[in-house]
């Protein structure tokens, strides 16, 4: 294998992992509060659509703001049902996914289908870091990416620190382990869960924004393409910690990038095999010893 092909593979892995990491880092906070948001798929596509609408008038920066806003709005509807009405999280999440996909698909067709030309949004291209990007093999993968990837280099450690080293992070984890004990200690589980869900919405929206504004450069119906569900797998595989989540996001990114490498190298492996691999790993990780102790104890309880 040539170094060039491998270096390109790593670069594609990081690129593919970036939107996954955003969504999964939001979801890890949500799940640490004891809530599982299957509606993440809808949140991501809402973010992508928000990016399309907002970037048309205000450029890339406004696009990201629009993406985050759209994600938060959809997450707020999820939180109303789950936290205020306390109805089933899984069923609500399924409905929110459908709502996101249906709303964005319908609005896109109603608003934009009149013009037949493909819509292009402004995009944030790669920001090449002068010296670091020249590091052999990994330089381009880590230091010739769009700014949204670099932001993760700050978000991941900050989130890990916040979750495990601050009082607020402790409150979050307490609510996820035992809401009644947390309430007895003077923490409001409803408030913690609401903020966690809204944060998850912002990150999910940013995930859709990255997809449109840093990668594809346009919106397409259903372009979230299952990333919300992949993010939920990533959280499991990453054992509910920000660092673990970042690592598993890279693994899922590498699995999708493997198909290009496989093509480049002329390997005779069906590309679906590499796409399936991370899901199988997640199932094995779930069954493995300790997966249950790693999961927040009150996860999914209304």
């Amino acid at each position, binding site marked *: 294998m040539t170094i060039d092909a491998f270096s390109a593979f790593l670069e594609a892995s990081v690129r593919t992992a970036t939107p996954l990491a955003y969504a999964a880092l939001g979801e890890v906070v949500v799940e640490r509060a004891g809530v599982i948001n299957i509606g993440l798929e809808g949140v991501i596509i809402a973010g992508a659509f928000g990016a399309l609408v907002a970037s048309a008038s205000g450029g890339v920066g406004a696009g990201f703001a629009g993406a985050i806003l759209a994600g938060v709005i959809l997450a707020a509807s999820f939180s109303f049902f789950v936290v205020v009405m306390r109805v089933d999280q*899984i069923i609500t999440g*399924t409905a929110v996914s459908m709502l996101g996909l249906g709303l964005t698909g319908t609005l896109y067709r109603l608003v934009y289908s009149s013009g037949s030309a493909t819509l292009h949004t402004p995009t944030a291209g790669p920001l090449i870091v002068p010296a670091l990007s020249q590091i052999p093999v990994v330089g381009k993968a880590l230091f010739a990416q769009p700014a949204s990837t670099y932001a993760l280099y700050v978000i991941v450690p900050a989130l890990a620190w916040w979750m495990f080293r601050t009082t607020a992070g402790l409150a979050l984890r307490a609510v996820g382990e035992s809401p009644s004990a947390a309430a007895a200690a003077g923490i409001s589980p409803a408030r913690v869960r609401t903020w966690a869900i809204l944060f998850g919405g912002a990150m999910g929206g940013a995930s859709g924004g990255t997809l449109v504004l840093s990668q594809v450069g346009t919106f397409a119906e259903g372009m979230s393409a299952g990333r919300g569900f992949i993010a939920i797998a990533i959280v499991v595989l990453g054992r509910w910690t920000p660092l673990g989540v970042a690592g598993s996001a890279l693994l899922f990114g590498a699995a999708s990038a493997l198909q290009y490498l496989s093509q480049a190298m002329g390997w005779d492996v069906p590309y*679906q095999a590499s796409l399936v691999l991370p899901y199988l790993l997640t199932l094995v990780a779930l069954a493995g010893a300790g997966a249950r102790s790693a999961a927040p104890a009150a996860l999914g309880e209304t």
Partner: protein
Amino acid sequence: MTMRATGRLVPPAAIAVGVFATLVLVVVGGGFDLGAALSAFWRGSVGSPYALLSATLVRATPLILVGLAVASAFRAGVLNIGAEGQLLAGATAAVAVGLAGPTWPGAILLPAELLAGIAAGAAWAGVAAFLKRSFGVLEVISTLMLNFIAVQGVSYLVRGPLQEPTHVYPQTSALAPVARLPMLIPGHRVHLGLLVALALALVLRWVSGATAAGFRVRLVGASPSAAVMGGQVKVKRVVFRVFLASGAMAGLGGATVTTGQTYALFEDVSSGLGYTAIAVALLARLDPLAVIGTGIFFGALEAGAAAMQRDAGVPSVFVAILEALVVLGVLAMGFSRRASAVASTGIE
């Protein structure tokens, strides 16, 4: 008596009004001709015998079967959201058998196809059921993973071992006429699968209401801890069996899609049916007989929306909004019922 009867009718009426209002909103908001759109919707769904027998009921058949699969699982507290993967497994197995045995007589081939679908669906659910029983794996996550594995599996098969002989299109060859479920009425596309679906709903209603097994399932769904402490019900075993049965029904639903409707396997063969079925089951309040009604309701909705897109240009993807609102509406009504119960008894 009258009060209760009215109370039972109000939610479906409220939801029907909500659905209609959303539909009108999309049509008017999108600047389409309301009259033309509604007339297309009517003509495409229930406005003529052809629409009813060749569109609505054809779409309703797998929705009823998979809706029953979801309802059965949810009743026992099994959150099987993997119906999509299980129906894909069933759809694939049925086609594989149908393509393998085109020289067999229909009386053998058709049951073999459906049984293959049932077995494949049960096996696909069986993975998640096994992981739950042996390792306590949350079925929500495992069934979700299995959905994606199934999607990739179908994608591989229709480009690999099961691809049509010219290797141009990512799909299987069409099933031979002998391998297709017979139509019920000549000239209309509604097929034998509908009768299978209706029969299954009746059987489930009977099992649920009049047998000890049905009682155990309801008990486990209502309160697993009470069922464990009562000591008479082996909760893990009940959950495991319900999980397999649910997968079997979804697999049967998938088998009717490929043998009765599409006559071939391709990647988008399900188009989200497994998720729509969740709305079908919830709107029916998990009652097997009501699933017949809600399955036909969603079948009509999808058929009508397809006609609206074809004849009036209204994007049919808005049906997903309607489905989501139905689910959220049912959840909200369950909430308000619970809230009023709390208010009247003072007990939460």
